[in-house]
Every structure is written in structure tokens, then in C-alpha cells.
């Protein structure tokens, strides 16, 4: 209680400590990976910051992989740093995101809507077909469904949700589930 915040529409992400984001591996520099998170600087991710990683047991990360992790350091003076484990040392869903799937970018306002507790969009989508979804606070969403068509349908709906009203959305979904 007693929290005030200013809600504004923005597309550009600013790294914030504790945020979970999807990053794209752009380079391997020795013991550290460089990730593009959509901010002003690439973030760094140490290879030891994965669950069960040791100096001998390195995680299998290649350039171009997608990683879901959280920021441990994120201020305007330093390069942001990410890890894929939480404070207790468990991965809890973070780490390399699997093969296939589709990554796309949306505005930060939509991300906040989607991540709100009891989001209608997600509840309605979950009725359609089985799929997997990873939402990064940096505006990136990754979707994977059984077929390419289904994946693209979900992507289109999520992108369009920005401008559709609830009724339009329900109509579109009704058409799809009818098909």
C-alpha cells in the first residue's frame, strides 16, 4: 500500500535490476556472453550464472541463442549484468530457451497488461491450443506452438492486442476456435 507509479507508453527498454528479460547472445568473450536486451548497452552474462554450472561443466550456449534471465546489476553508470539463477541458486525457469518458436517485439505497456494477474488475453489464448510463452520485460515475447501456423496466429493476436478492444479480440478468437 501507498505505492504510486506513473504509467506511460514506451517502446524502448531501460534495464532495471530484478527484471526478467529475453536476451539474444551476440558474442562470446572468454568467460562471459554478451547479450542484446534492447537497451542502450549489451548486457553481460557469466557462464557460471547457470544452475549446475561449474568451471568444467560449461553451459552449451551458442551465438544467436535466446536466454531468459534477470538483471543483478542495472544502473546508468555500469554495463548491465544478467544471471540465469535466482537468489537460492535455482534456475526456476530461467536459462536457454529451446529451439524453434518465434520471437517478436511489442511495446512495454502491452507487456505489463499481459503480465497482470488474471490477464484475459492470456486466459482466452490458453483455451485455443497448447503453446508455450515466454514474456520478457524488455518488450520481447517468444512463442512456440505445435505447428508454424498456430505459432503465427498467436503472434498476430498478441501484436494486434495492442490496438484491439476486448470485444474485437473475442470476436477474432471466436472465429479461430470455430475454424
Amino acid at each position, binding site marked *: 500500500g501507498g505505492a504510486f507509479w506513473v504509467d506511460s507508453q514506451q517502446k524502448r527498454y531501460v534495464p532495471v535490476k530484478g527484471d526478467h528479460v529475453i536476451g539474444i547472445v551476440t558474442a562470446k568473450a572468454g568467460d562471459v556472453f554478451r547479450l542484446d536486451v534492447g537497451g542502450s548497452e549489451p548486457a553481460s552474462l557469466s557462464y557460471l550464472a547457470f544452475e549446475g554450472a561449474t568451471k568444467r561443466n560449461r553451459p552449451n550456449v551458442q551465438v544467436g541463442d535466446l536466454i531468459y534471465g534477470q538483471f543483478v546489476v542495472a544502473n546508468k553508470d555500469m554495463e548491465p549484468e544478467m544471471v540465469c539463477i535466482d537468489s537460492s541458486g535455482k534456475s526456476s525457469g530461467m536459462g536457454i530457451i529451446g529451439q524453434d518458436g518465434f520471437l517478436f517485439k511489442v511495446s512495454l505497456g502491452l507487456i505489463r497488461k499481459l503480465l*497482470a494477474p488474471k490477464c484475459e488475453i492470456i486466459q482466452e489464448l*490458453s483455451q485455443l491450443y497448447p503453446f508455450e510463452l*515466454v514474456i520478457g520485460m524488455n518488450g520481447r515475447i517468444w512463442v512456440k506452438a505445435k505447428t508454424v501456423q498456430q505459432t503465427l496466429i498467436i503472434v498476430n493476436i498478441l501484436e494486434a492486442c495492442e490496438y484491439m478492444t476486448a470485444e474485437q479480440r473475442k470476436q477474432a478468437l471466436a472465429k479461430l476456435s470455430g475454424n
Partner: protein
Amino acid sequence: FMQRGLDSQTKKQLEEEEKKIISEEHWYLDVPDLKEKESCIIEERSFLRCEDLVYGRMSFKGFNPEIEKLMIQMKCKEEEIEEDDKMEADVSDEEMARRYETLVGTIGKKFLRKRDQRVLKGDEEDEDDEVEEGNSNTRPSKRAKKMFLKPQD
């Protein structure tokens, strides 16, 4: 040789002049120091805390069972936090106390050594009997377990 000395001297002179200039330019307040009040404002840059956002990794209709397990875990954590506020309980306190009483007894017995177990049995059956009995044959055993029967002399 002398040049180096001159250089250092000129450097020192320059430094002193700079210091004078700086110290003259330094502004200071004649006002007595104000006590720093503890500000009640905490700045938070993440939206995570503001709106209670859900965890970002989700799976539906069994697409990825591990993530579905994770989702249930995360929901449980949130519900736990909510339940702390609620005063209702599924099981009444009295029933909990009763169950716990018997539970502690039965599990405690499991970890006793054999001799202590017999003592416990003796306590339960005959409270007057203080002597530890060696023969299990003489007492009728409550349980149908077949225990080693010592041959009677």
C-alpha cells in the same frame, strides 16, 4: 639538472595558484547544518513491485510440463502470501492439535531403540509395572507381529 628543478618549482607555483583560486571560489553556507530527515520516499524503477506482475514463463495445455509445474509453484507462493492474511482455516485448530498429539507419539516410537520400545509398551499397558521385562513371551503382544520367542526353561 637545474631545468628539472625549475620545472618542479613552476609546477608547485602553478598548483598553489590553482589552490588559491579554487579555495576562494568555494562557496560555503553560513547557515547552520540542517539535520537530514529520513525520507519516506523509496525510488523503485521496476514495474514488478507496482503491479504484482506474474512470472513471465508460461505454458498451456501441457506443452511444456516442467514449466507448468513451475507455474503451479509460483501460484502456490502467491497464494501462500495471500493465505497468511486470511484467518480462515480448512482444519480447525483443535483437530490439528489432536492429530499432532498422536502423530508425534507414533513417529517418536519409530526412532526408539528396542529396549525403550518395550519400556514404552510396559508404560502403556501397566503403569504399576516398573520392572523392565526381558521376555516378550510372558506378555501378550498387542500387535500380530511374530516376535522371536525365547524358549522357556
